């Protein structure tokens, strides 16, 4: 090989080596380290953009909105995109309600993500972006969001509850059905240019959000407004520690209205005190007093220990038992079961309880739903207090017969009284009609059969007399309708033991129309600021019940008692 050929050969070898190196480097970059470099590139350009799910609304049974979302924007800044913080602050300040200096300070950053202001209204945020575009400024961006709003303010606050700023349910229906209301957020993998704008062509994997389901309650806001108004009036006039009212459908257990005082505005939940936020209908227990007499009467009748014609000697108003004296307001000798309920005889009730076996009596108390949670879908429900027979002293049984030595929640009392109203069945309180559009509305099924239809019918007819002129609650009457119910007046328990003198929890639990009960109502007034001589269930709670049910009957266009269908040509009933 001569010199020229050798040189050509060496050049060729060199070129081969160089291009082999290039090829190797190319293979290394594109094949061997492909995943690594793709990851680095994706980190620089790709973003997993979260698509937020819309929180479901809460509606009443007729579709009226009780909790809605208001769209708002979170204003953020990318310091790497801001060239003139001062000019940007001048443009943005009027829309954000912040001073120019404060904004300039926030914009003078190299941080790629700074939250400038949360919960800016949609209109203001869009106007600000337009003003920025006109001024050819960039670096400020908007994030989607929403805040929860309760358009009715304080109305129904204890049932609705509230959610926090991040949209998480904290109390009430908002908390119990948080998963259903929240839905699931989606995402989209995107790439953006140097200005931060999405390059649609390189849009990657996408998963659409599942918006939250609307929750439809059994509450009828027409009835709720009536209950809220009447309980408000009573709360202002009587100035009690608390007041509670519940309206339910005794046949289905559906809660139609529920209100407690004191209450709060869920839109300003951070200003509310704990006692305002308590749903006393489920979290508070009280000695029911005479309303509990329905239990012993129904139990004794159902067990055939007494019948409609039985007469019980009521000791002319004074009965010595277990070293204590049981007194009656209405002093009488013999009384029938109906009269015992009508005149609210403590002695008659106590004597009926004494005729029953402890276990049987206790069994009926429990079968009526006392001493256990009703299962209403709200947090914080308590079981009440019913002592088992082995913990009874000599007086417990007789005291329980007229509603002492036992503590119940208002919702338990509503469901217990509904047993008498609906023919003997204990219903589970129902608060939610449906979850999400198209979800099936389940029929309610009774928890258990407590007493026979005949027993409930007899107790019902006795409770009708309670509301008569001779009974303890003539003020509970509703014009045009036959009402049945029972008053309760119980002394308040002292935290130090025993009872507080002259301080009472008074109540009235009743239903109407008697022939076909559509409304079951309970009104409880705790420690009204009136004289002890006037502080009775029949004088304080019964009139409130009457006003509520009178207006509710008109609202529902109920058929007056004794009017036949043919006479009235009634309109179809409201759903």
């Amino acid at each position, binding site marked *: 090989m001569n010199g020229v050929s050798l040189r050509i050969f060496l050049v060729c070898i060199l070129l081969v080596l160089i291009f082999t190196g290039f090829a190797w480097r190319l293979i290394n970059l594109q094949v061997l380290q492909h995943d690594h470099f793709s990851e680095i590139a994706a980190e620089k350009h790709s973003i997993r953009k979260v698509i937020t799910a819309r929180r479901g609304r809460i509606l009443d049974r007729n579709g*009226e909105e009780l909790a*809605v979302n208001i769209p708002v924007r979170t204003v953020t800044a990318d310091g790497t995109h801001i060239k003139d913080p001062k000019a940007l602050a001048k443009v943005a300040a009027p829309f954000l309600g912040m001073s120019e200096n404060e904004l300039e300070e926030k914009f003078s950053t190299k941080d790629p993500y700074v939250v400038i202001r949360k919960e800016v209204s*949609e209109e203001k945020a869009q106007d600000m972006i337009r003003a920025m575009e006109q001024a050819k400024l960039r670096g400020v961006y908007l994030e989607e969001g929403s805040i929860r709003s309760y358009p*009715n303010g304080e109305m129904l606050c204890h049932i609705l509850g509230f959610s926090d700023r991040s949209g998480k349910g904290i109390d009430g229906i908002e908390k119990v059905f948080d998963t259903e209301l929240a839905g699931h957020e989606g995402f989209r993998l995107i790439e953006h240019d140097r200005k931060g704008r999405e390059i*649609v062509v390189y849009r990657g994997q996408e998963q659409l959000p599942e918006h939250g389901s609307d929750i439809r309650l059994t509450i009828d806001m027409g009835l709720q407004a009536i209950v809220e*108004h009447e309980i408000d009036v009573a709360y202002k006039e009587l100035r009690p520690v608390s007041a509670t009212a519940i309206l339910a459908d005794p046949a289905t257990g559906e809660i139609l209205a529920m209100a407690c005082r004191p209450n709060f505005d869920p839109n300003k939940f951070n200003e509310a005190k704990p006692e305002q936020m308590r749903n006393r209908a489920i979290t508070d227990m009280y000695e029911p007093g005479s309303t509990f007499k329905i239990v012993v009467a129904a139990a004794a009748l159902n067990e055939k220990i007494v019948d409609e014609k039985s007469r019980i000697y009521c000791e002319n108003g004074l009965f010595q038992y277990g070293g204590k004296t049981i007194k009656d307001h209405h002093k009488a000798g013999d009384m029938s079961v109906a009269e015992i309920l009508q005149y609210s005889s403590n002695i008659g009730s106590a004597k009926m309880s004494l005729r029953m076996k402890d276990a049987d009596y206790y069994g009926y108390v429990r079968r009526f739903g006392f001493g256990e949670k009703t299962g209403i879908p709200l947090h914080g429900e308590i079981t009440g207090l019913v002592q088992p027979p082995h913990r009874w002293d000599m007086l417990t049984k007789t005291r329980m017969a007229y509603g002492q030595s036992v503590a119940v929640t208002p919702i338990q009392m509503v469901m217990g009284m509904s047993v008498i109203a609906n023919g003997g069945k204990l219903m589970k309180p129902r608060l939610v009609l449906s979850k999400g559009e198209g979800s099936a509305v389940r029929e309610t099924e009774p928890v258990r059969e407590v007493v026979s239809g005949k027993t409930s019918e007899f107790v019902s007819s006795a409770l009708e007399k309670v509301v008569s002129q001779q009974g303890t609650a003539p003020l509970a009457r509703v014009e045009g309708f036959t009402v049945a119910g029972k008053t309760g007046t119980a002394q308040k328990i002292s935290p130090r033991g025993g009872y507080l003198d002259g301080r009472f929890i008074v109540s009235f639990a009743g239903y109407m129309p008697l022939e076909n009960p559509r409304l079951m109502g309970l009104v409880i007034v705790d420690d009204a600021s009136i004289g002890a001589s006037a502080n009775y269930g029949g004088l304080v709670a019964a009139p409130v019940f009457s006003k509520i049910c009178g207006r509710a009957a008109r609202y529902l266009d109920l058929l007056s008692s004794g009017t036949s269908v043919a006479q009235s*040509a009634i309109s179809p009933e409201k759903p």
Partner: protein
Amino acid sequence: MKGNRRRATNAIEVDFLARLIMLVCFLGLAGLFFVYLKNQQHAVGNQSRNLEAEIRETEAKTAALQARITAMTSRGALQRRLDEGYIRLEAIRDTAIARVTPPATAEADGVLRTASRDSDTRFGPGVPQRVLKR
């Protein structure tokens, strides 16, 4: 000499050259068309991004307005207006309420109505009323 020069001259292969030019032109056009399509893709992408933003903005505005309407027409707001005297409730007298009578059924009175909602439609529409024979 002359003869030698003529021999040294290479003939132009027009056929081959034409093919090559055609190929280059075709490749060039394909490249340009590719760039054009890519640009179009980006332009349409931008359009769709802007349109999506507009839709989101409109949706958000609608939701904000709906929330305002709900707040202004809620029971609480109406009650406040009622208390302040801006609106008034007028009681509707019982005589002014028209109640719809539930339709009589053939089972009840034995009369088959052509426009009734009876489940038994054997007679179909347009058939005159007749009395059920029992």
